């Protein structure tokens, strides 16, 4: 392990915690302005139909109701655009803020009620009468393509990733292994629902939106464009955010509506989503069906992988456009050498809630598919699955390793990694051979118990840039002003640690600013496990510049040379003996010109952490429940800024991965009515379901693409959970390949047990 710094590499307590522990948080629901109106959305009760009429007379007659909008009131506002992977052919499928002519999923916004009180707004929404002529409902994304409605086809586009000669690989293959696998529909479901509060500051002609998250600058620029305002005249403010996970903070119809209404009515407009709305209206994710085959030689070496898959994107293309299927196709190869590869993703529409990203987008899906395939190769060849992995892993000496295609505008080049070493370390920690032996004995005694293993490569640190300004005010307080966002992951602490390490001050004296568009002109936000890598390096660069400037100015005032000075805590000290010191506050007062520095870190490549999971579990043959007995995670982070926060990310991600593997699923009736509309239907893991996790963090492969070697921590806990659990259930049932679908709910386990 590399030498720890004074702050970087240490599990220091978080700066964020105190207000959150004492009830002083500022979440969206906590923000109110005098005279505000409350918005309530009237949503489509039908999965597909033609809007015949909307009758709002009774609703408008209710005391306290100020206005009701339908599409006609916002007809001049364009549909919401694409933030990532925005293919031109997808533009016809964008969503408008309120439904125009058709409704295409249950939960689609049809009208907006504005009232003095949220209870009254909800009463009024119930009184709005919508007449819809039903149309046929499409729910299967993997069937034959066809018309979605009068203007659109179900197949929006097909994207392809390929390298090598796939046909030749299958021509010379000794054996071909083929699988048909499905991943269920689930989502991030943060504990705080969405919320947005818009306010028009007439004195300064500025539109403000509070409750922003994740990507405030992009949303600011896009809202300005949609509403015909200069970006300087729209400002977004992030408060506390109750969980991100990909879903929160993207631009949604409701964000556009509160902003447009604040401008129109000159009143603050507050919208807080309820949980039922969240489960049917905020982005879903994950649902895919893969038909995959591998060409292998007689030694179990992979010659080629050919995957055709169907991505169920729901009824519209939202801000992520083709991001999730693109990442699924691009990251499917994982840690293995695949000499020939082809993936074709069919991006399909259905009459369900539109989709976006959810933590480890595309990789949770394709890691399940790839690791199922590796297990199937082992079963077909009779070679142990660990040995199959070993034979196909990319060797350390091959780094940096290019896959030969790109995603998110970057060529995929694994920057560093020693996959075999990490695999061996985890197998040793698990005592894999003995674990397997003990499980075999338990099975011989009648138990259904098994172990599973899965490996993965993650991506993180997406550029193209991050900009940071570090300032010291005349009171001596250091401020790090960033363009990123905080969704609960500890960004303030991590950036303060990096700044403190470089500058010499204590990390607790540093105030980290994020998510405020009026504090810095541009920013990329918080997604794709990018913040520590990109903003961390920018923070380091700006801190180096500031330190040089401060020591230079102090040297003049203290009549010495800058190399004989250091910053320790809140003062400048001499390193050559004399006890003369100068407080930072005094320096800031004397030389304000030297107390600010700015830096921008640019990167055109992502960085790729990697890991492996081992799970041991037993099945309850009566109830179909899965009891997890042991769970181990090995993850190479490159360099950890704060190990306890990294572990927190891993275990938290793992819990969500378990949810997607065992419990969580958005299901629909044949008529497209959503069945998971409360927390009694959408089952998330509780403290009883999440096991104690043994984590093994390593720093074997620091990234060569930034100074510290950082890689992202946000997603390594979740990526291979479905794959590892499926493998362990196969083992428990001694039936290789029996799990073909996630989630593996108790009733699916019961069905599998009946077929044994």
């Amino acid at each position, binding site marked *: 392990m590399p030498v720890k710094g004074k702050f970087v590499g240490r*599990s220091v*307590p*978080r700066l*964020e*915690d*105190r207000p*959150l*522990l*004492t*009830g*002083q*948080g500022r*979440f969206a*629901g*906590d923000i109110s302005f005098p005279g505000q109106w409350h918005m309530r959305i009237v949503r489509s009760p039908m999965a597909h139909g033609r809007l015949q009429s909307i009758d709002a007379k009774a609703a408008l007659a209710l005391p306290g109701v100020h206005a009701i909008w339908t599409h006609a009131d916002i007809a001049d506002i364009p549909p919401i655009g694409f933030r990532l992977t925005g293919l031109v052919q997808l533009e016809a499928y964008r969503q408008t803020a309120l439904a125009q002519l058709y409704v295409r999923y249950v939960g689609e916004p049809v009208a907006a009620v504005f009232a003095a009180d949220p*209870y*009254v707004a909800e*009463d009024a929404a119930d009184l709005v009468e919508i007449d819809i002529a039903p149309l046929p409902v499409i729910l299967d994304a993997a069937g034959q393509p066809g018309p979605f409605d009068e203007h659109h086809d179900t197949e929006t586009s097909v994207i392809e990733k390929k390298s090598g000669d796939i046909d030749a690989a299958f021509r010379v293959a000794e054996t071909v292994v083929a699988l048909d696998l499905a991943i269920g529909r689930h989502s*991030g*479901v*943060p*504990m*705080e*629902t969405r919320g947005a509060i818009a306010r028009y500051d007439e004195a300064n002609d500025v539109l403000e939106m509070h409750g922003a998250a994740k990507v405030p600058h992009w949303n600011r620029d896009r809202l300005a464009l949609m509403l015909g305002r200069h970006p300087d005249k729209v400002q977004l403010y992030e408060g*506390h*955010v*109750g*969980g*991100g*996970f990909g879903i929160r903070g993207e631009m949604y119809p409701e964000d556009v509506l509160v902003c447009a209404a604040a401008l129109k009515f000159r009143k603050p407009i507050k919208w*807080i989503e*309820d*949980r039922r709305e969240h489960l049917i209206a905020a982005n879903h994710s994950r649902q895919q069906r893969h038909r995959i085959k591998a060409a292998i030689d007689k030694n179990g070496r992979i010659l080629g992988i050919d995957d055709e898959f169907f991505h169920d994107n729901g009824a519209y293309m939202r801000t992520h456009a083709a991001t999730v299927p693109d990442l699924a196709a691009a990251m499917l190869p994982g840690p293995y050498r695949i000499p020939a590869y082809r993936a074709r993703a069919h991006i399909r529409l259905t009459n369900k809630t539109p989709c976006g990203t959810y933590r480890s987008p595309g990789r949770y899906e394709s890691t399940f598919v790839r690791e199922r395939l590796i297990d199937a190769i082992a079963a077909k060849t009779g070679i142990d699955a660990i040995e199959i992995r070993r034979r196909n892993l990319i060797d350390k000496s091959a780094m940096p390793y290019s896959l030969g295609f790109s995603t998110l505008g970057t060529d995929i080049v694994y920057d560093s990694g020693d996959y075999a070493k990490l695999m061996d370390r985890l197998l040793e920690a698990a005592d894999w051979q003995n674990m397997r032996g003990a499980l075999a004995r338990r099975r011989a005694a009648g138990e259904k118990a098994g172990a599973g293993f899965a490996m993965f490569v993650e991506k993180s640190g997406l550029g193209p840039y991050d900009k940071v300004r570090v300032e010291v005010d005349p009171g001596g307080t250091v401020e790090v002003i960033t363009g990123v966002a905080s*969704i*609960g*992951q*500890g960004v303030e602490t991590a950036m303060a640690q990096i700044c403190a390490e470089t500058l010499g001050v204590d990390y607790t004296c540093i105030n980290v600013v994020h998510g405020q568009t009026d504090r810095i002109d541009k920013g990329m936000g918080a997604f794709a496990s990018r913040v520590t890598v990109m903003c961390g390096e920018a923070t380091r660069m700006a801190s180096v510049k500031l330190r040089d400037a401060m020591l230079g100015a102090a040297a003049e005032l203290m009549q010495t040379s800058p190399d004989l000075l250091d910053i320790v805590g809140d003062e400048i000290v001499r390193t050559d003996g004399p006890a003369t010191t100068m407080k930072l506050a005094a320096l800031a007062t004397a030389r304000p010109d030297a107390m600010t520095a700015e830096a921008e870190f640019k990167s055109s490549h992502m960085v790729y952490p990697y890991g492996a999971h081992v799970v041991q579990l037993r099945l309850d043959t009566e109830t179909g429940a899965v009891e997890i007995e042991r769970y181990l995670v090995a993850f190479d982070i490159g360099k950890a800024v704060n190990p*306890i*926060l990294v*572990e*927190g990310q891993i*275990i*938290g*991600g*793992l*819990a*969500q991965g378990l949810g997607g593997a065992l419990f969580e699923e958005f299901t629909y009736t044949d008529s497209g009515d959503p069945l998971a509309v*409360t*927390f*009694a239907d959408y089952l*998330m*893991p*509780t*403290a*009883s379901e*999440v096991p*104690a*996790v043994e984590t093994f963090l390593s720093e074997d492969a620091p990234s060569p693409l930034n100074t510290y070697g950082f890689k992202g921590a946000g997603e390594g*806990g979740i990526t291979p959970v479905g794959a590892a659990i499926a493998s362990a259930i196969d083992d428990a049932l001694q039936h290789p390949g029996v799990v073909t679908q996630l989630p593996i709910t108790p009733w699916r386990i019961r069905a599998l047990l009946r077929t044994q």
Partner: protein
Amino acid sequence: MSEKTAITLNINGRDHSIKTEPRRTLVDAIREDCGQTGTHIGCEHGICGACTVIVNGEPVRSCLMFAVQADGARIRTVEGLAQGDKLHPMQQAFMDHHGLQCGFCTPGFLMLAVSVLEREPNIGDDDLIDVLSSNLCRCTGYQNIIKAVRAAAKEMRKR
């Protein structure tokens, strides 16, 4: 909608006299009428527990109780845990063990754990995990919450 009733909510030892519709939930009254926004709303159907407060010594989902039902009751919320600058042992333990990330579910977990340990200071580990399964957290995977509550239980027993 309907007539308002005058009620008094005693929150953290202070009386708040408000007028409220009978249908108004306790959590809305605490947050909107009494200005104590530390108690959060996560689902409004009694499952996630983000709105847990202590009413007359019992942990309560304040989204499932009407404000009028709490007239005259003694209510404790997260704002009442710390003594000035000194955090309650439960708050301190959550900080020490990284028992929170986004912090949205945290007030509910704090109030649930405090009320249970006040009533049952020597609660067994299985029962403790069973109780903590009443509330949902989406960030931490619960392990650090469990560690924090175990540590706070030790601290609270000393007092």
